[in-house]
């Protein structure tokens, strides 16, 4: 832990009064319950209160100054803040006075909190979070999955086609049950998509590297190409070079508007894996004048 004097921003000879003032000034700013939306407040506040725990007590401070105890020895026990309980799904302390004036006649708010929008009477259940790892193609083509919860119940998850990595699927009403007749919370399923051996996804498009032979590159022809929905045949024009990108329209990922992304095929000319004497003999007779390194000026 950092030096408690530095944490509180006081000199080593500061009076107890100054230390208390410094603590109060920082704690007012950093207390997590006074900053319900600030994620970092908790960490900073813990440092500040640990420092004050040490320096705020003259005995402990004197022992620390003499080197008898170090700063790490006085870390406070884990404690959970009020904000961890007060907001999610509401609680019996949560107060509707902050919006009661416009909630009374507002159908949007009363829909959320039930017909009588007396907030304290019925409380929506809290949401529960899950993670689900999917194979690349399962995420693109969609399907059904099941999650078994710790209590043994099984949750059916509908994977819409085109599901992205990091997307959160909301299963209405599958969270914790409501309080006093409130609606149940939702189950939020965060999707993790595993990478694929040959496909990569960028937005709604699929990218794939396609190896082609020398003769296919020079003469063109029909080649088979893998796509997420199965193998298709593609016409290769004559003189298709390494790095050429061909587009297979509509072979990408289903978009939310119902249209389809594309698959982009990047060609890669491959020589045969083993040396081919015929090819060597043939190329030896070939007199090309083209220098592929012209642009590099070598």
């Amino acid at each position, binding site marked *: 832990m950092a030096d408690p004097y530095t944490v509180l921003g006081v000199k080593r000879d500061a009076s107890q009064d100054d230390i208390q003032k410094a603590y109060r000034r920082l704690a007012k700013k950093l*207390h997590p319950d006074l900053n*319900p939306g600030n994620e970092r407040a908790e960490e900073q506040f813990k440092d500040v209160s640990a420092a004050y725990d040490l320096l705020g007590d003259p005995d402990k401070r004197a022992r620390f100054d003499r080197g008898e105890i170090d700063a790490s020895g006085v870390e406070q026990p884990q404690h959970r803040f009020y904000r961890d309980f007060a907001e999610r799904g509401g609680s019996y302390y949560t107060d509707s006075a902050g*919006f009661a004036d416009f909630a009374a006649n507002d159908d949007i708010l009363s829909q959320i909190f039930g017909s009588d929008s007396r907030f304290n009477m019925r409380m929506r259940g809290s949401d529960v979070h899950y993670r689900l790892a999917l194979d690349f193609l399962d995420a693109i083509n969609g399907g059904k999955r099941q999650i078994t919860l710790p209590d043994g119940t099984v949750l059916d998850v509908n994977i819409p086609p085109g599901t992205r990595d990091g997307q959160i699927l*909301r299963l209405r009403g599958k969270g914790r049950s409501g309080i006093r007749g409130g609606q149940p919370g939702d189950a939020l399923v965060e999707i993790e998509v595993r990478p694929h051996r040959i496909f990569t996804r960028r937005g709604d498009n699929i990218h794939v590297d396609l190896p082609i032979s020398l003769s296919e590159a020079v003469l063109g022809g029909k080649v088979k190409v893998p796509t997420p929905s199965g193998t298709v045949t593609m016409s290769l024009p004559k003189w298709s070079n390494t790095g050429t990108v061909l587009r297979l329209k509509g072979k990408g990922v289903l978009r939310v508007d119902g249209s389809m992304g594309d698959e982009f095929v990047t060609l890669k000319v491959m020589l045969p894996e083993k040396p081919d004497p015929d090819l060597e003999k043939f190329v030896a007779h070939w007199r090309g004048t083209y220098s592929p390194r012209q642009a590099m000026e070598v």
Partner: protein
Amino acid sequence: MASHPYVHHARLDNEVIDQWVEAGWLTPHQETAGQRYSSIDLARAYLIRDLKDLGVNDDGIPVVLDLIDQVHGLRCVLRELLSTIRSERQQQGRA
């Protein structure tokens, strides 16, 4: 009265907590038999203790608690509204 393991950690006396209940700052709801305070009651007790450490006096405590509870109410409504809007947007997108 059955106490709670957290009470010890929180450096709070049962007697002090009783006073806070009497003042209406805490309104414990029995969660399980033999345990008077639920986790949220104790987290709220911590908050009251911290507020006192910060120099808030007894007249100020209920004012601060009330405002914090209103903030949580608003944040709760805001979260609900956002999630409703988001799911409606998703449904429109899929339709």
